[in-house]
């Protein structure tokens, strides 16, 4: 399959990339890992007249803790995130997530920022970042703008990024002691999008009750879904089996799946309930219940 013709532009700096974006407006797309965009171009669902390849911009492939955040650079590849010892030790939910995204070849190119900026509710990082209470940094001609992840996903394939802005960094708050998280996904085969998936991140108080709770759902609605009812229910409560089961039910209530090739809506709701139960149980274990 041959994509429609386009002009290829390869800026060396972020300001150069932003100038090109502004110059070409809606006719331009940013090419990062390309693992979603190129297949869409081959299917001619996406037909950008200009591709702005940001892969040669230096200084965007980092992951570091700084100023109370884990900062993930805009060109951080999924394979690098998955292999990071820092992430594995302190942010196991991110390792879980990277581990089940697509397959090894795709993860070698695909980026964390691209996984968010694409705005696909079937992608895995959106729910995880919502559970973690992350922020994204959008860089435009006026400088940087911080967007809380909860305000980032507007509708199917549509995000709060303005034309002329590039997602240059993802910021995850450094979790307090006694925090843990997990991501559970059911996929029909390696490389498939989730039939459903659930991200859960918790922080426990001295008493063992949950102080902070983040729960979000993948591919059961037009955007990733923050399971607010479940979060509110668990806050201040002990993460025992009964409470986790009740929260999992609330998470399933918040899911808005549609019936498709991956299964009927009822099945997906039931799946969310079970995946939420497993994710919360693992998160609590990792927090040192």
């Amino acid at each position, binding site marked *: 399959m041959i994509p429609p013709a386009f002009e*290829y532009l390869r800026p060396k700096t972020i300001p150069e990339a932003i100038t090109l974006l502004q110059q070409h407006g809606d006719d331009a797309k940013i090419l990062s890992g390309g693992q979603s965009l190129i297949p869409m171009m081959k299917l001619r669902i996406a037909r950008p007249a200009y591709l702005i390849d940001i892969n040669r911009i230096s200084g965007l492939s980092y992951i570091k803790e700084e100023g109370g955040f884990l900062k993930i650079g805009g060109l951080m590849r999924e394979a690098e995130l998955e292999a990071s010892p820092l992430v594995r030790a302190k942010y196991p939910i991110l390792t879980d997530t990277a581990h089940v995204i697509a397959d090894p*070849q795709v993860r070698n190119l695909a980026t964390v920022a691209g996984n968010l900026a694409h705005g696909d509710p079937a992608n895995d990082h959106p729910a995880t970042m919502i559970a973690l209470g992350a922020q994204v940094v959008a860089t435009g001609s006026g400088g940087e703008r911080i967007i809380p992840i909860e305000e980032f996903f507007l509708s199917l394939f549509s995000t709060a990024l303005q034309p002329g802005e590039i997602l240059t960094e993802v910021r995850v708050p450094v979790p307090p002691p006694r925090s843990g998280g997990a991501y559970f996904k059911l996929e029909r085969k390696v490389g498939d999008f989730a039939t459903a998936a659930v991200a859960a991140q918790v922080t426990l108080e001295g008493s063992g009750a949950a102080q902070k709770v983040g729960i979000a759902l993948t591919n059961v609605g037009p955007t990733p879904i923050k399971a607010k009812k479940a979060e509110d229910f668990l806050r201040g409560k002990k993460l025992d089996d009964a409470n986790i089961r009740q929260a999992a039910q609330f998470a399933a209530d918040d899911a808005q799946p549609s019936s498709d090739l991956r299964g009927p809506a009822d099945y997906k709701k039931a799946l969310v309930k079970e995946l939420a139960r497993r994710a919360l149980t693992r998160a609590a274990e990792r927090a040192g219940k």
Partner: protein
Amino acid sequence: MAKKQLITVRVNGRERESAVEPRLLLVHFIRESLQLTGTHIGCDTSHCGACTVILNGKTVKSCTMFAVQADGCEILTVESLMSASGQLHALQEGFKQEHGLQCGFCTPGMLMSSYALLHNNPNPSEEEIRRGISGNLCRCTGYQNIVSAVQYAAAKMAKIESEAHVAEGVAQ
């Protein structure tokens, strides 16, 4: 038609220069411009991994990348595995000895994913092998013999390595 762009790519150790249309996929560049037809196009939709090549040390699906993106990069295709004297690579020998292929269509991609796997992890467990080739589909073998082939190659490469160390010791 968009303006062609000049790219320079090092493929299997040989520098290749070419003017390409930006929309030319890397796999078409490799197969048609360079006439290296060992790399296969299977699904053409990023699923099957038959088109896997190694770009700057990492496996990528060459159907999901533009040739122009590879400008200045180093690429290894399946043609790089056999030695100049015609000796098969341990992986190729493993696939032959263990019946790691039937129709053979997925084999170039399987070989390149396995090559990258053994490069990073010379002694992988069965689970690590299965995960390492999880981006490559095979519709014939059921994978069992492919796993055996990679295990065969890992053992053979370890043996070659240890013999080389012994020879080095003797020489000293």
